[in-house]
């Protein structure tokens, strides 16, 4: 039975703070460097733009089913969740702190188009630092779980960061890619990628496609409670594997096979058919539970 719509709180529409409030155990949210103790980006002010006190990201300590964890939540409504100097440094600081304190996990609520162009170099370098910090956390045994389902998805450098995390939980509404469809359309033409064709955009970058292909570990409803139970389920019994040649060899081989088999495809429908989905046309209509059943029934 699907939870009634009235009791559902859309992750997609919620602010970063509302997502955290619903994700963590009630009363456990404890913000680090809260808005009253921080100042908006001076770089935006120099460009005559108002900033946000938290620079578009909330970093905090909290609990998930009584497990002490850290969380990072990007605010997609502020500058597209894009990473500037302060925004990036807060994330890096939190990931380092999670290592120091041997946290049980870091939940990374990604909602970002990538580098904040207004602070381009600072943003790019910050993303590089976040990449290193995520891998440092994982190497120290701290799982970093990405949660993707916001209006800005996970794009640009933040798409890379998402794929560096231990696992990704995504909703159907979530999108995960490198270049945005608008960028590809602008550079390569509308025939290459029509960014206004929403159904196509979702078949190429959307949560169902990424889940079917195995790029995301878990597909959940667009519901804050569903992300919460998904994260809890994933972390129960999770052991972060030590970085090893064997694991990366296995990923290398999987990626090479995939490229050899699917390189010519341009639409999710083609990939799904090749994966063994009998009726690929029906995928966009399936609900979350049917998607999970479909994925689990696919030949491996």
């Amino acid at each position, binding site marked *: 039975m699907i939870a009634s719509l009235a009791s559902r709180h859309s992750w997609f529409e919620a602010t970063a703070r509302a997502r955290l409030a619903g994700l963590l155990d009630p009363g456990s949210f404890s913000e680090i460097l809260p*808005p*009253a103790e921080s100042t*908006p980006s001076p770089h935006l*002010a120099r460009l*005559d733009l*108002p900033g946000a*006190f938290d620079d578009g990201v909330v970093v905090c300590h909290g609990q998930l089913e009584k497990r002490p964890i850290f969380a990072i939540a990007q*605010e997609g*409504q502020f500058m597209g969740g894009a990473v500037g100097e302060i925004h990036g440094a807060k994330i890096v600081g939190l990931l380092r702190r999670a290592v120091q304190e041997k946290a049980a996990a870091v939940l990374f609520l990604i909602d970002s188009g990538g580098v904040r162009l207004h602070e381009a170099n600072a943003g790019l370098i910050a993303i590089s630092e976040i990449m290193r910090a995520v891998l440092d956390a994982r190497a120290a045994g701290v799982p970093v779980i990405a949660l993707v389902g916001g209006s800005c998805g996970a794009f640009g450098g933040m798409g890379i960061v998402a794929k560096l995390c231990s696992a990704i939980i995504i909703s159907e509404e979530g999108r995960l890619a490198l270049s945005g469809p608008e960028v590809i359309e602008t550079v390569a033409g509308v025939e290459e990628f029509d960014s206004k064709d929403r159904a196509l955009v979702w078949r190429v970058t959307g949560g169902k496609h990424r889940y079917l292909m195995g790029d995301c570990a878990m597909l959940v409803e667009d519901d804050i409670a569903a992300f919460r139970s998904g994260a809890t389920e994933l972390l129960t019994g999770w052991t972060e594997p030590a970085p090893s040649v064997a694991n990366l060899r296995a990923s290398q081989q999987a990626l090479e096979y995939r490229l050899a088999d699917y390189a010519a495809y341009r639409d999710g429908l083609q990939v799904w058919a090749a994966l063994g989905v009998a009726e690929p046309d029906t995928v966009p209509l399936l609900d979350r539970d049917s998607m999970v059943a479909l994925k689990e029934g696919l030949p491996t």
Partner: protein
Amino acid sequence: METLEFRFNSKPAPRAADPALCGVVGSGNLEILVKPGMQPDACQLSIKTSARGFAETWQAVLGSFAASHAAGGTVIAINDMGATPAVVTLRLAQALAEYQGGAR
């Protein structure tokens, strides 16, 4: 961008321990941070707004808020991306309620 400063007399608000934040700096929206101030019967406001030339509108909206709510003893900082007066009024009420309700 324009920076505006206002001070209005207002009935003292119950003093809260923690600052409260409401709203997001997104298109047509704003964020409001309410902190305790030093003057119990005055509300001090500072605004950074992307829309220039609306000082009089801000004065009217904020003045009416300070008159109709007990907001004395607060310092309120606002980052605005073109919110309408209706949205500003709504967010102010939310932020003040959160500030008072958030006292621990």
